């Protein structure tokens, strides 16, 4: 049976990746907006983003809006592919258990 990607297969990171995958390809979202969409604490989100960044799935871009530092997040091509593979495996698993 196919294995699910352990980087994605955890509730918080699955929600982060799913949310980023719902944005148009290559679009970035500011950290507080993502935090609001996911209803997660900043610390919790940072922790999971770091793991996803280490795996090469999420790109973190630091910038400035006026004087304020802004952090933009986006799914990398690798991350999007990993998410597609994950959903494919998931669907296969569900079909397997359902029949």
């Amino acid at each position, binding site marked *: 049976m196919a294995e699910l990607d352990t980087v994605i297969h955890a*509730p918080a990171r699955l929600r982060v990746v*799913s949310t980023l995958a719902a944005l148009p390809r290559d679009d970035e979202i500011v950290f507080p907006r993502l935090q609001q969409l996911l209803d997660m604490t900043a610390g919790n989100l940072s922790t999971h983003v770091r793991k996803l960044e280490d795996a090469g799935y999420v790109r973190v871009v630091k910038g400035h809006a006026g004087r304020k530092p802004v952090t933009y997040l986006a799914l990398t091509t690798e991350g999007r592919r990993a*998410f597609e593979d994950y959903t494919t495996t998931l669907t296969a698993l569900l079909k397997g258990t359902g029949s």
Partner: protein
Amino acid sequence: MTSPEHDDDAPGRPPLDPAESLRLIEESQQRARAATEPDGRLLYLVWGVAWLVGYLVLWTSTRSNGSAPDGIAFAVFFALLAVAMTITIVHSVVRGAGTRGPGTRAGTMYGWSWCLAFVTYPFIIGGIADAGASDEVIGLVANALACVIVGLMYLAGGTFFCDNRLYVLGLWILLTGGIATVAGMPATYLVMALAGGGGFLVMCGIEVVLVARRRRRGRVPGATAAVGPGADDG
């Protein structure tokens, strides 16, 4: 590096069930799209009401006046359009806030295209009025031009955003423009109200049904709906 309470992979946590995973994906993606994409239900509703009521007012006024609507009727009409425009702009800006990239840029450019088209609009109407066009010609051209702009913008939007319903609405509004011109005065305003405004309201109704259906489907555990990027039927 990571504290245990932040770690989903901490020992003792039960493994994530595939059906639960699928539910989390659908829920997250629905929430993300609902929060970052404009809500068709709201926008179709405000434009449907603005066209339906606004053009009905112009029609009623023209019927009692003879050749053209009076100043009060135009004031009501433009006030309704101004309200619809304000709601559309504020709503779109709020939904697009906090994102950047090619998708966001395409949305912004699309929004600006609407603005630029309707900035040139009064110059064209003013120009033909100055050239000596009658009230009847001005009224017919004003309606036709509005429908051509709106119809073509929806066709373009439907094409770029792969939105079939938007494309069909574009065709419908173009058709409305044609019929409204052939209908002549004062029936042109009635066509704009019923076919144009009615068209937006029908779209609003379709969106309401689709959103309700999507929500219901999202609540079914392990629903076998399409998942993943691009699995957007909205």
